[in-house]
């Protein structure tokens, strides 16, 4: 019975927000509903089941909309809704928390590029950024390395771990600006789990924003004092951090990152400043 009911609930609503007349396997939905739901003198079995079906879709669609406001801005409300429905049919929530609803969205967009159409590249960029935002919001923060830890180990032997809430992204569009603007517009507050019924804001007609010009951007998405920040990085700084993340020693990471860098630049003071800033943010911690 639970499988049967879940099968009905996880079937998307019609464009008008009603339960579909046919189940995914072609059966008449009215007959499916009548097989296990009692009618009363005001509502048919179909209508009673429809209340739950609507609640499910309002809840999960709103959850994705809250978590990916930038993607919604890039695709427009109508296209975002179609993408969300297709995604949720293929990837219904597999976690007790709505926080993880969008975990597979990037992979889905890669596997099924038709949902983003010609905006596939920017859609992927903004999806990665917005998932990194979720991770930054509540992933753990480990005790950061102290300056003594750095002084105790020479750079050619020092390997560090980056904070679990820190993500490094290389993107082809200025999606940090898009995401910030979209979050401000949506008042960006993540919904809380509760047992109340929710309602959709029904804003599916929001048009897509104009496509910005391509721009290679390197980003660190992290948490500082309980706020999530998108910090732009120089390409060389990004290369050092990704090498450190992947297990290189500090010396090797710097050497690799600067191998093809502009020889006219005096990198030493820059390196000193970068490492100082990253240490202040507490990005480095001890490897397991």
């Amino acid at each position, binding site marked *: 019975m639970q499988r049967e009911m879940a099968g009905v*609930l996880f079937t998307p609503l019609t464009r008008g927000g009603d339960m579909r007349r046919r189940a995914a396997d072609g059966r008449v939905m009215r007959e499916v509903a009548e097989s296990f739901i*009692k009618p009363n003198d005001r509502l048919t079995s179909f209508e009673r089941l429809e209340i739950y079906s609507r609640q499910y879709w309002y809840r999960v669609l709103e959850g994705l909309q809250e978590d990916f406001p930038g993607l919604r801005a890039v695709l427009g409300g109508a296209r975002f809704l179609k993408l969300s429905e297709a995604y949720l049919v293929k990837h219904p929530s597999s976690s007790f928390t709505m926080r993880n609803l969008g975990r597979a969205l990037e992979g889905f967009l890669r596997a099924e590029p038709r949902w983003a159409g010609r905006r596939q590249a920017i859609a992927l960029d903004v999806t990665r950024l917005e998932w990194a935002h979720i991770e930054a919001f509540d992933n753990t923060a480990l005790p950061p390395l102290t300056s003594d830890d750095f002084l105790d180990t020479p750079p050619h032997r020092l390997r560090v771990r980056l904070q679990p809430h820190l993500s490094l992204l290389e993107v082809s569009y200025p999606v940090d600006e898009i995401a910030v603007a979209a979050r401000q517009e949506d008042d960006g507050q993540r919904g809380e789990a509760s047992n109340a019924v929710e309602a959709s804001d029904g804003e599916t007609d929001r048009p897509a924003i104009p496509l910005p010009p391509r721009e290679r951007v390197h980003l660190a998405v992290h948490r500082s004092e309980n706020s999530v920040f998108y910090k732009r990085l120089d390409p060389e700084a990004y290369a050092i951090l990704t090498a450190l993340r992947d297990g290189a020693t500090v010396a090797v990471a710097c050497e690799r990152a600067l191998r093809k860098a502009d020889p006219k630049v005096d990198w030493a003071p820059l390196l000193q400043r970068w490492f100082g800033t990253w240490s202040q943010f507490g990005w480095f911690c001890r490897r397991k």
Partner: protein
Amino acid sequence: MPANSFNGFTRYGIGIGLRVPHYRHILERKPVVDWFEIISENFMVDGGRPLEVLDAILEQYRVVQHGVSMYFGNADRPSREHLKRLKTLVKRTGTPWLSDHLCWGSVDGSYSHDLLPVPYTFAAAKRTAQNIREVRDYLEVPICVENVSSYAEYHASNMTEWEFLSEVVELADCGILLDVNNIYVSSRNHDFNPFDYLNGVPHHRVGQIHIAGHTKFERYILDTHDHPVLDPVWKLYDHAIRHCGHTATLLEWDAHIPSFNEVHDEALKANAYIGEVDAAEQEADAALAARA
């Protein structure tokens, strides 16, 4: 009767749900609140603001955990990952009891994030009770199960909801979080007398009561938690605490949340009813003492 094994032998008064829009007010002004109920899932995370706020609240207030996704009525057994995370939080909060709903909500690892009614059968009661026992044994904390609002009934059901609830809590030997608003909503949606429900549950097992607002539509009522408590629900509350005694009571307000003071003032209206029960209990105690 109200301080019982199902609420960790506590005697809590009126609490409210801890919600994001009130964080600043609570942390800065430190209002007097008997206790806060938290939604466990909002704090089953590894770090960040949710846990920092929770720790600050725990320094000042008593906190009770309420869950929305344990799904005792699932045909599947409880998820180990969920239980592990929940136990970590239980250790953090020191919650004297923990509540979740008498419902199902996920199947084969896919989650509806909704509180779906269980068919009221003996087989379902047995399965549900097994799940409750497993959760309680793992978490090592008393459990209260909450009756949900529902909008559908199953052909398969062969008992009333209150008979089913009673069967489950007896089999699991657990407590009840009696949601009088949910009883009202379901009574209107399924045409039963809500006082029959209240009279039919084992009162000695009630560890906590929920009150809330709801929304009326033409053909059914939805449990929206976005209004003050309506008069018919206060009447049910009055009836409930006359039978259950002074019981920890919590107002749920989850959507269109007004100011902290407005929510708290609404919750404190319950004191008028609890006061009468307290007075009657004191009178009875005094009479006993005089006789002794």
